[in-house]
């Protein structure tokens, strides 16, 4: 029998109050071992307070070629940003 351990993507919450953030990947036979390995590989210097692992083949990603159709439409909607609107100074902070 010869079978490579599956690949897991590792997400770490650096501090309380922050999002989990992708830090890298590793191989492990199952989720439990993936957490243990992630602790050894990615948090040797106190980098985290919580770990998520997800088997890499369970992740669905957008394709690089869809970048245009997906993200360009928001470019023209500048009014979504507060700086689009000029508020007279005498109104004060808004």
């Amino acid at each position, binding site marked *: *029998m*010869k*079978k*490579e*351990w599956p*690949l897991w993507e590792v997400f770490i919450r650096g501090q309380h109050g922050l999002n989990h953030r992708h830090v*890298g*990947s*590793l*191989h492990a*036979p*199952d989720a439990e*071992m993936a957490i243990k390995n992630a602790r*050894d*590989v990615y948090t*040797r*210097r106190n980098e985290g307070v919580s770990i998520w692992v997800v088997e890499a083949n369970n992740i669905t*990603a957008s*394709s*690089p070629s869809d970048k245009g159709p997906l993200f360009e439409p928001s470019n023209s909607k500048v009014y979504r940003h507060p700086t689009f609107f000029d508020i007279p100074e005498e109104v004060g902070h808004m």
Partner: protein
Amino acid sequence: MYAQMVKSTGKGVQSLEDMSPEERAFQERIDRGEKIEPKEWMPDGYRKTLVRQIGQHAHSEIVGQLPEGNWITRAPTLERKAILLAKVQDEAGHGLYLYCAAETLGVSRDELLEKLHSGDMKYSSIFNYPTLNWADIGAVGWLVDGAAIMNQVPLQRTSYGPYSRAMIRICKEESFHQRQGYDIMMKMAFGTEEQKDMAQDALNRFWYPSLMMFGPSDKDSVHSAQSMAWKIKINTNDELRQKFVDQTVPQAKYLGLTIPDENLKWNEEKGGYDFSEPDWTEFFEVIKGNGPCNKERLGARVKAWDDGAWFRDGLMAHAEKQSAAKLAAE
């Protein structure tokens, strides 16, 4: 370097006009400083060269554990032992970051390891030299990690996203390695006469092999030119070697140790030291597999891999059984 003499594929650098539209768009992205990410289009040569370079770099981190691991059980104090253990564990981590970066290019971990074990892929020549005594552990941290940092710092800006991110993590951790080595050297150089002699002896033996880490001069190499155009390589080997010498000479002076080179001399004009080239015949012999420890190092890797096979398979079988049981229960 950790990746020495990596050959790029293809005919060398093409001008933008000679490139296909895809290649040109790709090169322009690199020239703009954009990062290339795994699923995006890239020239075949870029992918292949990166697999070779990142793979060789990863192998070096892993094989690099062996000469130092040799001294974990023989460290002079419990503190030194804990520090060395942490350093060697870091090297394992660095190897893993890099393997993962290489795998994003479509090569599997097992494939990379098989190529290391069969001798198809290389690791840095430096790890084929023995660590004979405790002073060598100091010299390895100071010189070998010092030379590695020289190469790795600019690689943080490399064009391939996963490689760049791995290098950023590695560089954050690497300066601890060099400092712990220099700390050992200070202790020995300022210790008894015998300790100082050991420190000098370690410097004598590791100096030229450390200079070899950067690889032979590549200022006229087409491979290097292509890698530099792709921002896989940022500086020439000679530039990095010069920087390393200029940085290290004052550090040796502080220790009261002598660099084993009669031709070492400050050159006011170039603002750097003149120094002797290492023996490149020796370098090519080591690369070919005839260094003092090549067989021992590769032998240890293959043994660890073979001896661990039942364990890897056992854990996998257990995981499969558990997931089958979970499925049946649902």
